[in-house]
């Protein structure tokens, strides 16, 4: 997992608070608004969600009567 999504840095219109969802494409910066992810693709995120869910399910199965 060496591909990374860069964190939002710098400011848009001089307002640091509004930079968490900045996305740059073809030199144009816009706000993603949601659907942010630490993974490089939706596929990777889906697999990680599946792994996490299976781990939780295993834990519940083993440790809950």
């Amino acid at each position, binding site marked *: *997992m*060496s591909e*990374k*999504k*860069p*964190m*939002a840095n710098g400011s*848009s*219109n001089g*307002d*640091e*608070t*509004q*930079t*968490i*969802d900045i996305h740059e*494409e*073809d030199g*144009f910066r*816009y*706000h*993603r*608004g*949601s*659907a*942010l*992810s*630490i*993974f490089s693709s*939706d*596929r990777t*995120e*889906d*697999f*990680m*969600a*599946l792994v*996490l*869910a299976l781990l*939780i*399910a295993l834990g*519940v*199965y083993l440790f*809950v*009567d």
Partner: protein
Amino acid sequence: MVYTHKHPALLIMGGIFLLIGILVGTGALDGLIAYLHAGKYKGEMIWLGYILGVIGIVFGAWHLWGRHEEGDLDYYGSTVAGAIFIMLVAMIIRWFVAPYVAVLSKALGPVMGAKYLHQVLGLNYVVLGILAGIIITNTIGVPMWARNGVRLSRLGLKTGVILLGTLYSLAELQQLGKLSVVLIGFFVLGSVGLVLLLGRLRGLPNSMTGVLSAGMGVCGVSATVAASPVVKAKPVEIAYTIGTILLWGVGCMFLFPIIGNMLDMGYVQFGAWAGTGILNSAQVAGAALAYQPDGIETLKVAEIFNITRVLFLPIIVLWLALWFVKREEGNERVNVFQVIFQKFPIFVLGFILMFALSSTGIFAPPQHYKGKYFDNNIPESKLLKPEEVAVLKAEFDKVKQAKPEYAPALQRLIENRKIMSREDDALIRGLNNAKIMSKKANKLLKKAHKAVRHTAKKIKKFRQWITLLFAFGLTGLGMQITMAAIRQAGGQPLVVGGIVGTVKAVLSLIVILLFVHETI
């Protein structure tokens, strides 16, 4: 680039969680908990306080005093701070703020029938958590040390959706699945078609219309991002679409529960409406939990609709790809299978896998209904009282005439004061749904059904995990919604999006009120 910030915040947050766990565990906060009527969260405050406290302190010490070099460990390790930040905001709201809002609201007295102001406005921990996230990001801003972790929110939501698969029975999935395919099929295809038509009438570029139709028709921002390459959407067009979707999605997330409460909608009706009418997947979950914060029946219905919508995504992307190629000269042919393969949402397979595992009976006795299994070895206190039996006896002849197939099960219930078998339980549920007995009698049928249905401990634990994952995901979602993103909406895309969004919300409400009933 090094992502981990040398900042004491995580250490401090860990200390706060640990302090909460200790204070609650020793009874020091009993007075406050009693005043807030938050006793049901006491267990959670203790175990979550200790676990998140230890994680926060250990990782906080590492963040502050450890050596950090560029790499995977640094990148993924840096997310702990943001994750704990989200949990702190979400849990303080769940354990203290939301209960306090309820106390204040109840002091004002009922405002609509028997409902209090906070119930009508849906001011529960879900809505307040999302609001808190939005306020934080648009005032002081999410701190830099937390930003990477805030991006974990969607992972939390997806994990929660996958785990939801453990709670459905085959009967529920079949009935909800059939309903959702019909409703979603109509409204998704209809919305996409309407945007394409309006876009053409208003002279929007094909790329703008294409990406807007995916966002408005399917599942919001994710669909926008998925469809943008096939319609060659420009970044400014994606920005317009995201702005429009967020404006409507966030607005609907707060408005739908208020309308649902005013219309006294049932869980199935509201879940179906939220799943059909709200644009963005995450906002669907937010609205469902806002409507029923202390249970997940509404969320279960809404998520089936959400999943059905997401399953339509490859079909819509394919449609748009073919539509775009037809309209724009000089574009390459579309590889149908490649599009479907690339766009198919894998996490839905995870949901199906969890459902399949649950159906084998490893988490609860098989043949459960809504996560509850049948067991009629119940104490005397759970049996129907003699006066309650008399009510059912008085209406027995009515049932025998109108619905003779239910009479034997009702007879056995009257004789034994409890439901005698799983088959009888299904018949009693059917009799209740048929609504041929009086309201009082139907309440007794429901009481008899509840007495013999028990939630397996494992299923209870899954419900708890799902609730916490969604609380985490939705509060984090709020922190991603910037006013700057919403202000991107404007011009013709906003007009087209507004028309389609309104038509979808209103029409789906009418259809659901007319044709969807609480019999699933």
